[in-house]
């Protein structure tokens, strides 16, 4: 089991789904951010899995060093995104004294 990618991918998919569901059903933007983190890390896990087992997966185009590269990029983006997102959330909280996502529908067409 430890030498095959299935378990890792299963965990990755599970975590991604938890993150997705959390993103869709929760109204608190902080929790939604955490859900996004979950999804990003799930994808990181998938990247690393494919990287690690790149020889065993038939038809895979990338090599063993591609996975860490993408993972670092994703982590960097996640950090930057968290900074910008939290700044926005704080600004919204300062002006409205609340951060309910359902109430923020100014961009309705």
């Amino acid at each position, binding site marked *: 089991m430890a030498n095959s990618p299935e378990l890792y991918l299963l965990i990755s998919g599970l975590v991604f789904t938890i993150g*997705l569901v959390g*993103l*869709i059903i929760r109204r608190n933007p902080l929790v*939604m951010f955490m859900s996004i983190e979950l999804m990003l890390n799930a994808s990181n896990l998938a990247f690393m899995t494919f990287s690690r087992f790149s020889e065993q997966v038939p*038809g895979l185009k990338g090599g063993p060093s591609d996975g860490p590269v993408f993972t670092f990029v994703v982590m960097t983006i996640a950090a930057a995104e968290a900074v910008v997102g939290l700044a926005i959330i704080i600004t919204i909280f300062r002006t409205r004294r609340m951060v309910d*996502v*359902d109430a*923020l*529908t*100014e*961009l*309705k*067409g």
Partner: protein
Amino acid sequence: MQFDSMILTLILPVLGALLIGTMGSRWGRNSAAVVASGSIFLSFLVVLCNLWQAWPNPVARSVDLWKWASFTLDSGTHDIYFGIYVDALSLTLMAVITGVGFLIHWFSTEYMKGDPGYTRYFCYLNLFIAAMTLLVLANNFALLIVGWGGVGFASFALIGFWREKPSAAAAAKKAFVMNVIGDIGLMIAVFVLFQNLHTLDYATVLHDGLDTIRLDSSRGQWLPLVLLGLLVGAYAKSAQLPLHTWLPDAMEGPTPVSALIHAATMVTAGVYLLVRTHPLLELSPAFLQMVAVLGAITALYAAYCALYQTDLKRVLAYSTMSQLGYMFLAVGVGAYSAAIFHLVTHAFFKALLFLSAGIVIHAAHGEQDMRRLGGLYKDIPYTAWMFGIGGLALAGMFPFAGYFSKEAILHAAHGHIVLYLIGAVVALMTAFYTGRAFFMTFFGPQRVESPHLPGGPTVISCTILTILSVVAGFFAAPFARFLTPGPEAEGFEIHTDFTFEGIVITVLVAASILIAWALYGKGQPDKFGRNVTHNNFVRSGLQVDAAYLMWANGFRDLGRLCAKALDKVFTTLLPGLVGSSFWGMGKSLTETQTGQIRHYMVSMMLSVVVLLFYALLVGGGSLL
């Protein structure tokens, strides 16, 4: 490139027109007049020399100057040359064009004095002579079209010479439109001819190519189109029914222009065309018969309208139309020499009539209505004499020129008794309306105060034309011999004997003139003025104009209808529909913009799922 002295007759007027057009305003009026008249006089001398050489047995020559155009068809490459064709017919026409043209130029130098557009006038006049020369001298149909269009333009420019006058501008436009109808007919004829014979050369088409046409089994499909096109061209240019309406209105132009273009030369181009192409016409006797019948009808119609005119120039215009009808009648019955002979004599006496009418109009300070003229014999007796002699020639009185040419045509029409009778009746009507115009203008009480007296050039040029109108008739027989292209050619003999009919017609013509004298000799009121409705109906040319206008108005109303109904659909309703449909589409799409992040998230996820499924099931693992 060969040189032929007849080319000079083409170069000189072109040069004259160019010089006057560019330098005229700098050189001054007298120089312009001298250049214009001088260039025409020089070309007249050239024509005379050529006539002298050719007399009495002319040899036709076709001189190609340079290659003008070249067409590649399936059957090979066919060249069209810029060349001239000199034979008895073109020499005769050229003598009339340059001779009468020079006299009219000379006349104009005095007549147009005091007109602000003096140099412009002479530029146009030279341009006209150049175009007419090209028309007559061309040795192929393509070049003929150039001349044909050129005279149309010059006629347009000169009818509308007094362009500040709305009626003159309208008349010019009308003449141009009618002439363009003829141009299109001629062009179609020439195109079809080229398509089937692969050449437009006169020498080939009208002589050697005739056998090709006779042997061509499919000629029934294209020859009628050619002949019809030629006829439409000739009818429009020569103001024959039903394309005649522009000629009476063309009298808006200066009177020497009416004399030159609308009596002596341009309007006879149609007769020239038919005589030139008579070998083609003879291939279809039915067409020739149609030409004869339509010519007779035109002659009758125009003579009838002339009876009722009150405007001196319009009388002459209708009589020109009527005499052209005679010429077409002559062509139709196959009397080509008679047609050309009448063309020549008509050029002399009608130019004379128009020019003396010009003197009259000047004397009367621009008055053209014969009811307000009268008694002018006492003021300008010499002009009255000249007008009278011209009138007698027009009426066909022995021994003036018109008698011989008209008698030749009537004699040629002997075989067709109806046409002959129409011709005879028209001759009597001609005598009557000519007498009426003469007596109304020169006799009766004097109605013009302090008339303007004519000067030297006008009187001298009219005198020369008077002499020609008297003596030209006696040259019928040598003229016919000169014009006959070959011993086997038919239709070129002219009847010159004195016959009983000739005497009868002369007596009847004299009687008609006497009746006119009795009715109008003492300035009596117009006998044709009682029934006003009928009077106006005939005076307007039997309302042919109104009929055309009705026809044209139909199209205008159709256009208005389109403007109202179709325009609304295509410029307002349909574009509006397109616009509003996009508006509605956008409106319904904005419904998807809920502003809820949740909704966007779900749609994003669903899209990804759909794309993934597509990639796995259809794309074989790849989105591309």
